[in-house]
């Protein structure tokens, strides 16, 4: 049996394949009434794509579905001891500029069950500081399951 963790609990799943399509979405109201969002997304790594290729594919996807999507800067960094790529991005929606920080990680990339994960925080560009604070907290404290 494998353990599955949600924020409130842990439980066992039978030994059969499960494809985890969960998208985590957390929202906080900022003092100005705007919303700060945290998103965690995962999907199996297709073929033998590198993290760099996965990130580039994701950038292309966002460029086609979001208005004025731009990568402001990017850096390779360790995310809880796992190699990752961090991006600062922005786009426009209904006249508002949005800001998003993304951490891209390939978990268990060497195994057949490798998972591509994205941790993102986003909000209006004017709330960049709150996004940065939340994202930094995630990056500095993330610990991966080892069992």
């Amino acid at each position, binding site marked *: 049996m494998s353990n599955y*963790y949600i924020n409130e609990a842990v439980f066992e799943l039978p030994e059969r394949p499960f494809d985890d399509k969960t998208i985590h979405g957390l929202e906080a109201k900022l003092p100005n009434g705007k919303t700060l969002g945290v998103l965690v997304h995962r999907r199996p790594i297709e073929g033998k794509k590198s993290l760099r290729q996965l990130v580039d594919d994701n950038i292309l996807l966002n460029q086609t579905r979001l208005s004025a999507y731009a990568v402001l800067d990017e850096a390779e960094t360790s995310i809880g001891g796992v190699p990752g790529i961090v991006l600062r991005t922005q786009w426009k929606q209904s006249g508002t500029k949005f800001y998003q920080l993304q951490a891209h990680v390939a978990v268990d990339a060497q195994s057949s069950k490798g998972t591509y994960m994205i941790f993102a925080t986003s909000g209006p560009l004017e709330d960049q500081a709150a996004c940065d604070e939340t994202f930094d907290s995630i990056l*500095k404290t993330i610990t991966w399951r080892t069992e």
Partner: protein
Amino acid sequence: MPNYYVNEAAFALPEKGFADRTLHRLESPLADTEPMGLEIRRVALEPGKSLRQLVDAEVAATKLKVNGFTIVEDVELPIDGAPAIVLRARLRALDMPYYQRQAHVAFEKTWLSFIVTGPFAERATCDQTFERIVHSLAWRRD
């Protein structure tokens, strides 16, 4: 800072009063048929409303939305010490009979629903998965 757990990791979030809108969805392939699904939803418990009232209202709403939705069993039992209502249901989807198990739990200030759904012919697999979840579930105590 509160720690937030996802299946692969845990991290700290600043104290900004985050509301968790996550919808967990896992799918397990079944032979020659649609997959079995596991959904976990969470909603803040409404002050003044019991878990029974919330579940009854949801069942009534589901009966209006979902073809052939019928509750065949309704049991109240604690899940790792938290009050819970466990349902067994059937419904029709994609022109096929489906089978569903639901566990609704009041945990602290949250109404959590664990829902396993699959084709009726695969009800034994659904039961095995659901029972495993319910009997092994352990709440975070930190």
